[in-house]
């Protein structure tokens, strides 16, 4: 029970200090709108392309929503030494880091539903397989949040967190099959795509939204879960090695 009180308090505190700040809420709204608009205009195929673009925009919204704030927030708290307060609390490191990432996960999930809501105004979403879409959104958010945590633990300064985040995020726009099928990528880049968690999340969404997935759903979900476990374990290991010196 005591651990849950701590968990909930960390989540609420982070939501208030970071995720529910007006600039971040506006970022959550404007960012998906800008991406949707950009690809919509670029495709030139009118409203027909909404369903084709939706999986990529949803994935990107989650990826940028989770990584932008979490990596910076954790690094900021580490620099200001307020993170020490959390490390001194009598709660297991695993619970602590899950609490720390929960805010980002929820923020990422909320981000995902912005483009979905917009799309609902222009396209018929009745054929979307929600049973696959919703878990995919959650798993992409979890994997992205753990990626952000991994980034935060690997750097010391806030600006490094931003730079390092972009090092992962921007290639993902092109390498994860969000807007261009993986088959169209140069052969030498394709192995890289399969090393990125969003590739599998986007594939589930392509399948669930416009039946254009390229891999079995079980493989996609399995890989996403695997990425979540590995990234979280790596982050914990790095915290123990780098922060609890």
């Amino acid at each position, binding site marked *: *029970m*005591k*651990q849950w*009180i*701590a968990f*909930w*308090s*960390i989540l609420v*505190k982070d939501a*208030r*200090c970071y995720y529910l700040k007006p600039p971040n809420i506006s970022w959550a709204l404007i960012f998906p709108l800008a991406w949707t608009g950009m690809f919509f205009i670029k495709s030139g195929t009118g409203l027909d392309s909404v369903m084709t673009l939706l999986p990529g925009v949803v994935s990107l919204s989650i990826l940028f929503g989770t990584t932008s704030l979490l990596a910076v927030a954790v690094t900021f708290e580490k620099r*200001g*030494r*307020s993170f*020490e*307060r*959390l*490390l*001194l*609390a*009598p*709660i*297991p490191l695993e619970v602590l880091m899950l609490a720390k990432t929960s805010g980002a996960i929820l923020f990422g999930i909320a981000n995902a539903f912005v483009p979905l809501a917009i799309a609902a105004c222009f396209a018929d979403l009745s054929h979307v397989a929600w049973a696959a879409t919703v878990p995919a959104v959650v798993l992409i958010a979890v994997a992205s949040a753990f990626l952000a945590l991994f980034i935060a633990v690997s750097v010391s300064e806030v600006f490094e967190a931003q730079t390092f985040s972009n090092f992962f995020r921007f290639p993902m726009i092109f390498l994860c099959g969000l807007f261009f099928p993986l088959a169209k990528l140069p052969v030498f880049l394709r192995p890289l795509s399969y090393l990125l968690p969003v590739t599998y999340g986007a594939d589930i969404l392509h399948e669930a939204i416009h039946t254009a997935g390229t891999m079995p759903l079980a493989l996609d979900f399995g890989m996403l879960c695997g990425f979540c476990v590995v990234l979280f374990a790596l982050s914990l290991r790095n915290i123990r090695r780098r922060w*609890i*010196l």
Partner: protein
Amino acid sequence: MTDEADLVIQVEGLSKRYGDVRAVDNVGFTVRRGEVFGFLGPNGAGKTTTINVLTGLARADAGTIRIGGVDCTGNPKKGQHLIGVVPDENNLYPELTGFENLCFCGALYGMRRPEREARARELLMTFGLVEAARRRFGGYSTGMKRKLTIAAGLIHHPPLLFLDEPTTGLDVASARQARQLIADLHRAGTTIFLTTHYIEEAERLCDRIAFIVSGRVVRLERVTDLVQPHQARRVLLVSVSDAKAGLGEELTLAFPAYRAAPAGPGQIRVESEEPICIGPLVRFLEERGVEVLEARQVRPSLEDVFVEITGIAIDAMRKEKEKRGAREGAG
């Protein structure tokens, strides 16, 4: 003989390296229930590293640690519910108000809402921060930040409190208030592990003191036992208009029973095992064109013990620490 159950901290053979630097080297000590234990040493001696290892913010390379009888050597989390920590920097959340910060810290220790809110109000009252309770921590003055940081360390009624430089950066009134609070906590039975650069503070508050130099505990005694050998010594502080170089040596040559040395700008410190005759000293100085502004006898203190053990002037060390505190306050 101290009963093992009365030992709140038991440390044996504690060592910690950072690369090539041996920050803590085979340190061992015990802290008894209800005592104020001072941990003093020059900057970089290993005080904060020791606190970090004891509280779980750093890992020991060797040695054993027991907190409240619980072996925390491999798993510091086991003892963390027993300890409160006031770090040397104010590390609360600038975005949250004073009240919210205290409530959040209480929640980290599993305190339920009514309990932590009541305790937060009580602490805000104790520290005179009631009016600032709804203001953001980021907008507090340095002194207010320090007070709230100390309050945060007490939120869960810890039986053992680590205070790392608690009064650094506080104005005189706030520092006095903080010392009074430490004394009150001591009276209430809280065990306190204190590091400070204010030696008079340690002398006034601590029951026992360990001196750490270059990562090793070089002396551990009761304060009275540390100071007593120095009490027989006479010390005279002479303020002069112009403390020329070599004046101390000249005095020592002229008065072989005394040891004279500069003690800061315009001051000479004269020590002796025998009573010091002020008249001949003043005449000697005036004959050399040095005007004596003041001569006063001072009581040898723990500061003398510190200087003797560490060979480091406290003033320089304290100023460096205060500069750091001021930079933090400005930032």
